[in-house]
Protein backbone atom coordinates (compact mmCIF):
# COMPACT_ATOMS: atom_id res chain seq x y z
CA UNK A 1 0.00 0.00 0.00
CA UNK A 2 1.54 3.33 -0.92
CA UNK A 3 1.81 5.79 1.90
CA UNK A 4 0.56 8.59 -0.28
CA UNK A 5 -2.16 9.25 -2.80
CA UNK A 6 -2.34 12.12 -5.21
CA UNK A 7 -5.16 14.09 -6.72
CA UNK A 8 -5.24 16.87 -9.32
CA UNK A 9 -6.66 20.25 -8.45
CA UNK A 10 -6.84 23.89 -9.40
CA UNK A 11 -7.53 27.30 -8.02
CA UNK A 12 -8.72 30.40 -9.84
CA UNK A 13 -7.93 33.34 -7.60
CA UNK A 14 -9.46 36.70 -8.45
CA UNK A 15 -8.35 40.09 -7.21
CA UNK A 16 -10.79 42.99 -7.51
CA UNK A 17 -8.48 45.97 -8.06
CA UNK A 18 -9.70 49.29 -6.79
CA UNK A 19 -6.47 50.90 -5.62
CA UNK A 20 -2.89 51.31 -6.79
CA UNK A 21 -1.62 47.98 -5.47
CA UNK A 22 -3.04 44.82 -4.01
CA UNK A 23 -2.02 41.23 -3.42
CA UNK A 24 -3.55 37.78 -3.38
CA UNK A 25 -2.38 34.36 -2.22
CA UNK A 26 -2.45 30.79 -3.38
CA UNK A 27 -2.17 29.01 -0.06
CA UNK A 28 -1.36 25.36 0.40
CA UNK A 29 -3.69 24.11 3.12
CA UNK A 30 -2.79 21.45 5.59
CA UNK A 31 -5.05 18.96 7.33
CA UNK A 32 -2.74 18.17 10.14
CA UNK A 33 -1.59 19.51 13.45
CA UNK A 34 0.80 22.37 13.98
CA UNK A 35 4.32 21.94 12.66
CA UNK A 36 3.42 18.84 10.70
CA UNK A 37 2.60 18.30 7.07
CA UNK A 38 0.06 16.16 5.33
CA UNK A 39 1.43 16.49 1.86
CA UNK A 40 3.07 18.32 -0.97
CA UNK A 41 1.65 20.40 -3.82
CA UNK A 42 3.35 19.96 -7.19
CA UNK A 43 2.36 23.10 -9.07
CA UNK A 44 1.93 22.26 -12.75
CA UNK A 45 1.12 25.67 -14.15
CA UNK A 46 0.70 29.28 -13.10
CA UNK A 47 -1.02 31.88 -15.27
CA UNK A 48 -1.92 35.49 -14.58
CA UNK A 49 -4.71 37.28 -16.45
CA UNK A 50 -5.04 41.07 -16.38
CA UNK A 51 -8.72 41.86 -16.80
CA UNK A 52 -8.35 45.32 -15.34
CA UNK A 53 -8.39 48.58 -17.29
CA UNK A 54 -4.72 49.41 -16.69
CA UNK A 55 -1.31 47.97 -17.45
CA UNK A 56 0.00 46.37 -14.31
CA UNK A 57 3.33 45.21 -12.96
CA UNK A 58 3.01 41.84 -11.28
CA UNK A 59 5.41 40.25 -8.80
CA UNK A 60 5.21 36.61 -7.73
CA UNK A 61 6.83 35.34 -4.57
CA UNK A 62 7.10 31.76 -3.33
CA UNK A 63 7.07 30.34 0.15
CA UNK A 64 7.64 26.65 -0.34
CA UNK A 65 8.40 25.33 3.11
CA UNK A 66 11.01 23.12 1.47
CA UNK A 67 14.10 25.25 1.87
CA UNK A 68 17.17 23.29 2.87
CA UNK A 69 19.48 24.58 5.54
CA UNK A 70 22.60 23.47 3.68
CA UNK A 71 23.95 23.64 0.16
CA UNK A 72 22.73 27.13 -0.36
CA UNK A 73 24.51 30.43 -0.30
CA UNK A 74 21.73 32.58 1.02
CA UNK A 75 18.30 31.29 1.91
CA UNK A 76 16.05 34.28 1.98
CA UNK A 77 12.67 32.72 2.54
CA UNK A 78 11.21 31.35 5.69
CA UNK A 79 9.33 32.65 8.66
CA UNK A 80 6.27 31.58 10.49
CA UNK A 81 3.37 32.97 8.54
CA UNK A 82 2.32 34.00 5.07
CA UNK A 83 2.59 37.57 6.31
CA UNK A 84 6.36 37.23 6.19
CA UNK A 85 6.13 37.14 2.42
CA UNK A 86 5.41 40.85 2.41
CA UNK A 87 8.94 41.71 3.44
CA UNK A 88 11.96 42.01 1.20
CA UNK A 89 12.18 41.50 -2.52
CA UNK A 90 12.30 37.73 -2.64
CA UNK A 91 10.44 37.49 -5.90
CA UNK A 92 10.74 34.75 -8.48
CA UNK A 93 8.93 36.46 -11.35
CA UNK A 94 8.14 39.97 -12.54
CA UNK A 95 5.92 40.91 -15.49
CA UNK A 96 4.38 43.93 -17.11
CA UNK A 97 0.95 42.85 -18.33
CA UNK A 98 -1.11 45.01 -20.66
CA UNK A 99 -4.82 45.35 -19.98
CA UNK A 100 -6.65 42.34 -21.34
CA UNK A 101 -3.54 40.21 -21.65
CA UNK A 102 -2.32 37.07 -19.92
CA UNK A 103 1.12 35.66 -19.12
CA UNK A 104 2.08 32.03 -18.66
CA UNK A 105 4.31 32.19 -15.60
CA UNK A 106 5.16 28.50 -15.60
CA UNK A 107 4.08 25.21 -17.07
CA UNK A 108 4.89 21.53 -16.67
CA UNK A 109 8.47 22.15 -17.77
CA UNK A 110 9.12 24.04 -14.55
CA UNK A 111 7.15 22.44 -11.72
CA UNK A 112 7.35 23.88 -8.22
CA UNK A 113 6.84 22.09 -4.95
CA UNK A 114 5.12 23.46 -1.88
CA UNK A 115 4.83 21.66 1.40
CA UNK A 116 1.44 21.94 3.05
CA UNK A 117 2.50 23.31 6.36
CA UNK A 118 0.97 25.04 9.37
CA UNK A 119 3.23 26.73 11.80
CA UNK A 120 0.83 28.18 14.32
CA UNK A 121 -0.62 26.26 17.20
CA UNK A 122 -4.11 24.81 17.27
CA UNK A 123 -6.86 25.68 16.80
CA UNK A 124 -6.00 28.56 14.48
CA UNK A 125 -3.86 26.70 11.97
CA UNK A 126 -2.74 29.14 9.34
CA UNK A 127 -1.13 28.02 6.10
CA UNK A 128 2.29 29.56 5.72
CA UNK A 129 3.28 28.15 2.37
CA UNK A 130 2.11 29.22 -1.05
CA UNK A 131 2.38 31.88 -3.74
CA UNK A 132 1.90 35.60 -3.28
CA UNK A 133 0.93 37.80 -6.21
CA UNK A 134 1.52 41.53 -5.87
CA UNK A 135 0.27 43.93 -8.54
CA UNK A 136 0.92 47.61 -9.18
CA UNK A 137 -0.99 49.96 -11.41
CA UNK A 138 1.50 51.26 -14.01
CA UNK A 139 -0.65 53.90 -15.67
CA UNK A 140 -2.11 55.85 -12.79
CA UNK A 141 -5.66 57.03 -12.60
CA UNK A 142 -8.66 55.02 -11.57
CA UNK A 143 -7.84 51.33 -11.56
CA UNK A 144 -10.72 48.89 -11.81
CA UNK A 145 -11.37 45.36 -12.95
CA UNK A 146 -9.79 42.05 -12.03
CA UNK A 147 -6.48 40.28 -11.85
CA UNK A 148 -6.79 36.50 -11.93
CA UNK A 149 -4.13 33.98 -10.99
CA UNK A 150 -4.82 30.45 -12.21
CA UNK A 151 -2.89 27.66 -10.50
CA UNK A 152 -3.14 23.98 -11.35
CA UNK A 153 -1.44 21.39 -9.21
CA UNK A 154 -1.12 17.79 -8.16
CA UNK A 155 -1.48 17.23 -4.46
CA UNK A 156 0.33 14.34 -2.82
CA UNK A 157 -1.33 13.39 0.44
CA UNK A 158 0.99 11.85 2.96
CA UNK A 159 -0.96 9.23 4.84
CA UNK A 160 1.74 8.88 7.42
CA UNK A 161 1.25 12.47 8.51
CA UNK A 162 4.95 13.00 8.65
CA UNK A 163 6.51 15.34 11.14
CA UNK A 164 9.52 15.84 8.90
CA UNK A 165 10.48 19.34 7.89
CA UNK A 166 11.24 18.04 4.42
CA UNK A 167 9.10 16.44 1.78
CA UNK A 168 9.01 13.07 3.45
CA UNK A 169 6.57 10.78 1.77
CA UNK A 170 6.79 12.37 -1.64
CA UNK A 171 7.18 9.61 -4.22
CA UNK A 172 8.09 7.13 -1.52
CA UNK A 173 6.41 3.81 -0.94
CA UNK A 174 6.31 1.41 1.93
CA UNK A 175 7.82 -1.94 1.13
Amino acid at each position, binding site marked *: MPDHVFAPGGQHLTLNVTSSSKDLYFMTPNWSVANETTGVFEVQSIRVMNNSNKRVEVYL*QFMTGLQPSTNIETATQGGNSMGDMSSG*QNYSFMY*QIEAGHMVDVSDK*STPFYFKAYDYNEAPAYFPNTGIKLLQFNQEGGTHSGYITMIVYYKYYLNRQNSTSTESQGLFRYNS
Partner: protein
Amino acid sequence: MSTNIYWAHEVKSYTYVVKNNFVGSSNVVTLLTATPNSNRFVSSVICLNVSNIDAEVSLAIGTGGNTLALSNIINRAMIPPKTTAILSDLQSPIYLQAQNPGANRDLVFNSPDNAQLNFTVTYHEITDNSGF
Protein backbone atom coordinates in the same frame (compact mmCIF):
# COMPACT_ATOMS: atom_id res chain seq x y z
CA MET B 1 27.64 -5.14 -10.55
CA SER B 2 26.98 -5.35 -6.88
CA THR B 3 23.59 -6.68 -5.97
CA ASN B 4 23.48 -4.42 -2.97
CA ILE B 5 23.18 -1.17 -4.86
CA TYR B 6 19.90 0.65 -4.61
CA TRP B 7 19.15 4.21 -5.50
CA ALA B 8 16.38 6.75 -5.83
CA HIS B 9 14.28 5.05 -3.20
CA GLU B 10 13.41 8.41 -1.89
CA VAL B 11 13.34 11.65 -3.79
CA LYS B 12 13.39 15.00 -2.12
CA SER B 13 12.73 18.29 -3.74
CA TYR B 14 13.09 21.87 -2.79
CA THR B 15 12.25 25.21 -4.20
CA TYR B 16 13.84 28.30 -2.82
CA VAL B 17 15.02 31.73 -3.66
CA VAL B 18 18.57 32.96 -3.47
CA LYS B 19 19.20 36.64 -3.49
CA ASN B 20 22.64 37.90 -4.20
CA ASN B 21 24.24 41.04 -5.46
CA PHE B 22 27.29 41.69 -7.57
CA VAL B 23 29.84 38.88 -7.23
CA GLY B 24 32.57 40.26 -9.49
CA SER B 25 33.91 39.23 -12.85
CA SER B 26 35.42 35.92 -11.81
CA ASN B 27 33.80 34.86 -8.54
CA VAL B 28 30.92 32.42 -8.27
CA VAL B 29 28.11 31.79 -5.82
CA THR B 30 27.12 28.22 -5.04
CA LEU B 31 23.48 27.36 -5.55
CA LEU B 32 23.65 23.64 -4.90
CA THR B 33 26.16 20.92 -4.04
CA ALA B 34 26.16 17.23 -4.91
CA THR B 35 28.14 14.98 -2.61
CA PRO B 36 29.35 11.47 -3.49
CA ASN B 37 26.41 9.82 -1.73
CA SER B 38 23.80 12.37 -2.61
CA ASN B 39 23.39 13.62 -6.16
CA ARG B 40 21.02 16.27 -7.46
CA PHE B 41 18.60 16.18 -10.36
CA VAL B 42 17.95 19.83 -11.11
CA SER B 43 14.63 20.26 -12.88
CA SER B 44 14.68 24.03 -13.20
CA VAL B 45 16.82 27.09 -12.64
CA ILE B 46 14.99 30.40 -12.84
CA CYS B 47 16.72 33.75 -12.51
CA LEU B 48 14.95 37.04 -11.94
CA ASN B 49 16.84 40.29 -12.39
CA VAL B 50 15.19 42.58 -9.86
CA SER B 51 17.39 45.55 -10.78
CA ASN B 52 16.99 48.36 -13.26
CA ILE B 53 20.11 47.41 -15.24
CA ASP B 54 20.95 44.51 -17.54
CA ALA B 55 22.62 41.53 -15.93
CA GLU B 56 24.81 38.95 -17.64
CA VAL B 57 24.45 35.68 -15.78
CA SER B 58 26.54 32.55 -16.28
CA LEU B 59 25.48 29.18 -14.94
CA ALA B 60 28.26 26.68 -14.42
CA ILE B 61 29.17 23.38 -12.80
CA GLY B 62 32.06 23.85 -10.42
CA THR B 63 34.48 21.53 -8.77
CA GLY B 64 35.18 23.55 -5.67
CA GLY B 65 36.60 26.96 -5.08
CA ASN B 66 34.94 30.20 -5.94
CA THR B 67 36.50 31.03 -9.27
CA LEU B 68 34.59 30.79 -12.51
CA ALA B 69 36.11 28.40 -15.04
CA LEU B 70 35.00 29.31 -18.54
CA SER B 71 35.07 25.68 -19.58
CA ASN B 72 32.48 24.83 -16.94
CA ILE B 73 29.78 27.23 -18.12
CA ILE B 74 26.61 25.48 -19.22
CA ASN B 75 24.40 28.48 -19.90
CA ARG B 76 24.70 32.23 -20.16
CA ALA B 77 22.03 34.86 -20.53
CA MET B 78 21.76 38.63 -20.68
CA ILE B 79 18.73 39.34 -18.53
CA PRO B 80 16.97 42.70 -18.93
CA PRO B 81 15.73 44.64 -15.90
CA LYS B 82 12.80 43.16 -13.98
CA THR B 83 12.79 40.14 -16.24
CA THR B 84 12.86 36.43 -15.50
CA ALA B 85 15.04 34.02 -17.48
CA ILE B 86 14.67 30.25 -17.38
CA LEU B 87 18.24 28.95 -17.45
CA SER B 88 17.22 25.29 -17.25
CA ASP B 89 13.98 23.34 -17.21
CA LEU B 90 12.76 19.76 -17.51
CA GLN B 91 13.41 19.82 -21.25
CA SER B 92 17.10 20.39 -20.50
CA PRO B 93 17.66 19.29 -16.91
CA ILE B 94 20.97 19.28 -15.09
CA TYR B 95 22.28 16.26 -13.29
CA LEU B 96 24.81 17.13 -10.64
CA GLN B 97 26.84 14.00 -10.11
CA ALA B 98 29.65 14.02 -7.62
CA GLN B 99 32.70 11.88 -8.19
CA ASN B 100 33.51 9.02 -5.91
CA PRO B 101 35.47 9.27 -3.76
CA GLY B 102 35.28 12.63 -2.26
CA ALA B 103 34.83 15.18 -5.03
CA ASN B 104 31.74 17.30 -4.80
CA ARG B 105 30.11 19.05 -7.72
CA ASP B 106 28.57 22.50 -7.35
CA LEU B 107 25.97 24.33 -9.37
CA VAL B 108 27.23 27.89 -9.40
CA PHE B 109 26.51 31.23 -10.99
CA ASN B 110 28.47 34.34 -11.81
CA SER B 111 27.35 37.86 -12.63
CA PRO B 112 29.80 40.66 -13.36
CA ASP B 113 27.05 43.24 -13.19
CA ASN B 114 25.93 45.08 -10.10
CA ALA B 115 22.42 43.72 -10.27
CA GLN B 116 20.29 41.97 -7.69
CA LEU B 117 19.43 38.46 -8.79
CA ASN B 118 16.85 36.12 -7.34
CA PHE B 119 17.29 32.43 -8.11
CA THR B 120 14.57 29.84 -7.83
CA VAL B 121 15.93 26.31 -8.08
CA THR B 122 13.92 23.11 -7.99
CA TYR B 123 15.75 19.84 -7.63
CA HIS B 124 15.44 16.28 -6.49
CA GLU B 125 17.91 14.86 -4.07
CA ILE B 126 18.91 11.33 -5.02
CA THR B 127 20.71 9.28 -2.45
CA ASP B 128 22.03 5.77 -2.78
CA ASN B 129 24.11 3.37 -0.78
CA SER B 130 26.92 3.00 -3.25
CA GLY B 131 28.10 6.51 -3.93
CA PHE B 132 27.51 5.90 -7.64
